[in-house]
């Protein structure tokens, strides 16, 4: 279980989506790391990666919309961080489409995705919740 209660920002829509994102990431990692021969699980690894990538786009859009709605002051900077990460993942996938989906590159991407998401939800996204609470307060 990758999701932790302390990742909550106190906004149900965002928290539910974060939990779903961690779930899809966890599925991807489990396939990549399950020890089965790479050629036998390649399709499943690609599927779980696509499933995760798809949700990242959907979630970033919703989270950015929420930030605009509450007038989050760091919206522009946060949007750039999202766009930068999405571009990085897209570039990994583009490269693998060209050079083949190697186990090593998929493991590298899984590690990068994991550490990025833990830091982003654990720190950057927490500030959205703090701002939302300060407005209500």
């Amino acid at each position, binding site marked *: 279980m990758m999701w932790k209660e302390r990742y909550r920002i106190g906004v149900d829509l965002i928290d539910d989506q974060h939990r779903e994102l961690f779930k899809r990431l966890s599925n991807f990692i489990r396939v990549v790391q399950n020890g089965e021969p790479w050629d036998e699980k390649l399709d499943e690894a690609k599927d779980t990666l696509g499933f995760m990538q798809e949700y990242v786009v959907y979630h970033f859009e919703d989270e950015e919309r929420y930030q605009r709605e509450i007038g989050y002051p760091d919206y522009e900077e946060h949007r750039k961080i999202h766009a930068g990460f999405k571009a990085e993942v897209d570039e990994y996938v583009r490269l693998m489409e060209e050079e083949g989906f190697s186990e090593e590159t998929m493991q590298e991407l899984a590690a*990068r995705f*994991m*550490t*990025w998401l833990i830091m982003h939800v654990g720190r950057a996204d927490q500030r959205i919740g703090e701002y939302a609470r300060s407005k209500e307060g």
Partner: protein
Amino acid sequence: MKVDHINAFYVAIQEIFKLMLDLDVEKGELRIVEDMVSSKDANVLLGITGDLKGSILFGFPKHMALEMVNIMSGVDMDEIDTFVSSALGEVVNIIGGNALTSLSNYDYICNMAPPQIIVGKYKSISMASERSLLIPLETEIGKFDVNVFLAEAKNIN
């Protein structure tokens, strides 16, 4: 090497270990060592340039490296593969980034090269004949070392 420089890294280690791994980190007795050697199973080297120049070398024993990645991923690991070594490299990279941000508050502007990961090799790293500082660190999942060598490239004050 000033206490502030060392401390910037120690504080960043504590903060990131807590945030990413839910672990507290205790510092042991600092030692001066003649050589920077990657003697552990998983080693991550950070090159620093700018107002401070040098290297920071993190060394983790295998069981600890695997446990760290288990904490983050929720999946049991049994070898230091690309997933494990990349994840360790990322954690160290984030620590380095945090430390450089706090050093910039003391007007030391530095850059960092992408982390270099050295798995299971005994290799001497230091290029200069300079001594480095070894910081032994301890968590509830194991002990690890951080070697710091930083020289001032300019004089402040």
